């Protein structure tokens, strides 16, 4: 008797197991394909560069570029340039994040602030703000301050708009009940509105982060000096193509690592949110 009753659930468990196996196989297959594709790309790069169809100046082989990165890492040049670029990009990013969230929250709460900044944000967002770089150099010189400033100027817009949109979409009943329980306006903002708007704010930060990196590198290229962008530019001036390609690989790795780190942080911060249960 018991065996008969168990049969359906056993069958269900079996299909579940086999589905799980299929899913696992799929993930493993896709992961394998990803590694395979990247390896094929690197091998194709190496073979094409050595085939004699292009000069080593146009495309140095991957092995030569990897050697160059290794040499830079040993001599310490890589770490110095990397840390300078990261400090600029991250300083700009964090200032833009803090300022953008504060401005967005102020715009959501205060109609005068909103009236004043709304057209500025909506006109400024689609502008190519990098065009203002020479003006910022004129004002602040070619050192860290001007580089961080242009990063802030570019990265703040997505944070402000995401914060505004996030706050606008917060469930009104949450705010009403908070107010009912006697929360002050400041407490409402810190304890209810901002946490509830967090998913969209984080999306804005995820847009702002690559912008910060792109702009920091452009600023370094335009102004020279230390940093990954500056190093690539001087390599290009001295026709040192290994240096240029080493720069691309280094910057690509930094960009990839930053985006992945941001995704991990998002999952951590939103562990309480229903969004997390989909993963």
């Amino acid at each position, binding site marked *: 008797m018991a065996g008969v009753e168990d049969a359906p659930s056993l069958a269900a468990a079996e299909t579940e197991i086999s589905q799980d196996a299929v899913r696992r196989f799929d993930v493993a297959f896709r992961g394998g*394909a990803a590694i395979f594709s*990247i390896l094929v790309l690197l091998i194709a790069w190496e073979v094409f560069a050595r085939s004699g169809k292009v000069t080593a100046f146009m495309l140095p082989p991957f092995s030569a570029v990897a050697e160059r990165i290794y040499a830079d890492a040993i001599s310490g040049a890589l770490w110095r340039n990397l840390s300078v670029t990261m400090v600029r990009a991250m300083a700009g990013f964090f200032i833009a994040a803090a300022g953008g969230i504060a401005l967005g929250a102020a715009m959501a709460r205060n109609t005068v602030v909103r009236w004043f900044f709304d057209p500025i944000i909506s006109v400024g967002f689609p502008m190519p*703000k990098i065009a203002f770089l*020479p003006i910022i150099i004129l004002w602040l010189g070619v050192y860290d301050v001007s580089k961080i400033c242009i990063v802030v100027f570019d990265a703040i817009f997505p944070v402000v708009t995401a914060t505004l949109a996030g706050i606008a979409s917060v469930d009104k009943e949450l705010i009403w009940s908070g107010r009912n329980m006697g929360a002050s306006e400041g407490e409402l903002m810190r304890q209810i509105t901002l946490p509830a708007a967090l998913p969209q704010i984080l999306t804005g930060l995820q847009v702002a982060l*690559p912008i910060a990196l792109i702009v920091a590198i452009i600023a370094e290229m335009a102004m020279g000096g230390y940093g990954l962008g500056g190093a690539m530019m001087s390599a290009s001036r001295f026709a040192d193509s290994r240096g240029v390609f080493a720069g691309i690989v280094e*910057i690509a790795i930094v*960009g990839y690592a930053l985006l992945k780190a941001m995704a991990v942080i998002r999952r951590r911060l939103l562990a309480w949110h229903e969004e997390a249960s989909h993963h």
Partner: protein
Amino acid sequence: MQAITQAGFRYLPLVLLALAWEIVARLNLIDSSALPPLSKVATAWVDLVRDGELIDNGASSLYRGSVGLILAIVVGGGLGLCMARWRLLDIFVNPLVELFYPLPKSALIPVTVLWLGFGDGSKILLIFLGCMIPVTIGAYNGARGSDHALVWSARSMGANRLRMMLDVIMPSALPELLNGIRTALALAFILLVSSELIVSQKGFGYLIGYLGSTGSYEGMYAVVLTVALLGFAADRLYQLFMQWVLRWRE
């Protein structure tokens, strides 16, 4: 009339900013070489238009930008649609798209110069490479989201692969594809101006750098504002175009 007053009230802060700029510069609160008055910037703009410098350099910038962007839309969009349609292509090409997606595109500036020199070619290549990925991702996500029921019913009605692509998958991928192109449009302006600022002998970015280095800051401000407003106008026009294309949706 009421609509005009409303718009006026809405954009009043921008007018106030312009006024504040003029007053601060006129009162010499900031060194007038660092911040020339807006009125002088406007005169410099008229001069630049009149002697043709702004038009010449602008034309070469717009040429580079539009060719690069169109190439990126055609190739990137095609790649995205094909990836969504053929699983094998998806499995092997998607990792590469994901690998290049977070690459800060400005890193490509020195390489394109290395390959194609200081002229049009290097800028077009840069914009093509930089703008392709967002278009690819937009087309891919859009086409993958297309309703399976629609695809099946089209197939049961005997649509072949090409018809299916044109009549079913393209239209349903359109909203996301158009959004991807909007990102690409903004990126194209950024890459264009920055590459021209860094290495060029022509174009808006070159003109900004040239005027700055010769100390004619009124002219430099005029060109900077022109580029910024062009970027803004392009985005607004594109939004109108998007609304018009997608007018069949609710």
